[in-house]
């Protein structure tokens, strides 16, 4: 067992976990944050993507024990109260989901790619979005509306930064 303490969606969470506990298990079973989905459990589908210290990672492929002191954000932590995150709002507007199983991972990957490209001052083109989505699999939508949603959200997400300049 390992004693861990991390910040999840801004709140402190501590537990004594078996050493083989995956972050996805810790989030879903210990914290009951079931918005993080487990689709494949073989590190391929991306349904389980969360942010750890600002980076997108597959929570099914990280040990909880290795994250003592980490800052974790899950899909439950991106909205501002009742107000959806621009990425969530764009998925809703553009029908970027059908069954919704892949959606938490898509949104977390979407937010990550937009922030990375904006930090580097690079344009997030349609091509780049498709490339960036290589680790997120969707069985329903055919991806077109997901790509449109991320493109639209990228515009929304850049707006406040520009206004502040």
């Amino acid at each position, binding site marked *: 067992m*390992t004693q861990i303490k991390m910040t999840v969606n801004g709140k402190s969470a501590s537990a004594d976990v*078996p*050493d*083989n506990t*995956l972050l996805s298990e810790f989030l879903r079973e210990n914290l009951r944050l079931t918005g993080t989905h487990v689709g494949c*459990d*073989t*590190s391929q589908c*991306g349904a389980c*993507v969360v942010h*750890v210290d600002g*980076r*997108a*990672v*597959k929570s*099914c*492929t*990280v*040990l909880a*024990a*290795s994250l*003592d002191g980490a800052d974790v954000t899950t899909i439950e932590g991106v909205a501002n109260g009742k107000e959806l995150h621009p990425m969530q709002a764009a998925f809703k507007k553009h029908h970027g989901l059908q069954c919704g199983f892949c959606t938490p991972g898509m949104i977390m*990957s979407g937010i*990550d*790619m937009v922030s*990375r490209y904006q930090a*580097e001052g690079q344009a997030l083109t349609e091509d780049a979005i498709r490339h*960036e989505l*290589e*680790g*997120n699999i969707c069985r329903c939508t055919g991806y077109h509306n997901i790509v449109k949603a991320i493109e639209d959200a990228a515009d929304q997400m850049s707006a406040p930064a520009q206004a502040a300049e």
Partner: protein
Amino acid sequence: MYQTKYHKPASVDEAVAALSSAEDGKVLGGGQTLLPTMKQHLAAPTDLVDLRGIAGMDAISAADGVLTIGAGARHADVAASATVREAIPALACLAGGIGDPAVRSMGTIGGSVANNDPAADYPAAVLGLGATVVTNSREIAADDFFEGMFSTALGEDEIITAIKFPIPSSAGYTKFPNPASRYAMVGVFVAQTGGGARVAVTGAGQDGVFRAEMMENALSSSFEAGALDGATVDSRGMLSDIHGTAEYRAHLVSVMAKRAVDSAV
């Protein structure tokens, strides 16, 4: 996943000690290969020795014609590093093409090189640039390091601490990704160095990464794609599986080698 004991040592010495006192201990780098393998019960180490608590393991620096990348540097760090982009742009580009963004935020160069997957990208760069693998106890030349599929010169409880890449005058890497897994069906790394041209091929060989000598000779006389006309690799040593036959892979090696030379900077 079977039960295992997690360790997070603060130094390389402590890590080596933890490994040697474990019954069947394994190093944990970014976990992007080891954890999926453990989940499938294909590996069941009694102890995992995580290197991420060791300060400086992910350092990247360039001096005196050598780029040194710490074993703990993650693929995303290497791809984004201004030092790597300046010294060996082909290496930054290779790192940025490994797997997907979430794999790149965790996977490390040390883990990839230690694992020596026959379809992995980094082994092509390490061999193609004639790099040196630095461990806790010695330095191993790339030519002596890769011993075959998933097999290396690393001893038991030996830990890679860094990779030293001599900076070439130019280098390029092109891979033909498997459309499903994104691993290389064939990846070719070419480099123009003081000692002539080097060409390393990943994804294709039955024994993992290898040097294509006929291509090296052709490129040593003239480092341009046209020089590779007629320079081939023998299909007899190539992998043949549901993704492609040995002949197909041998053909792809020639095509990728030319594109790698064209892309070299």
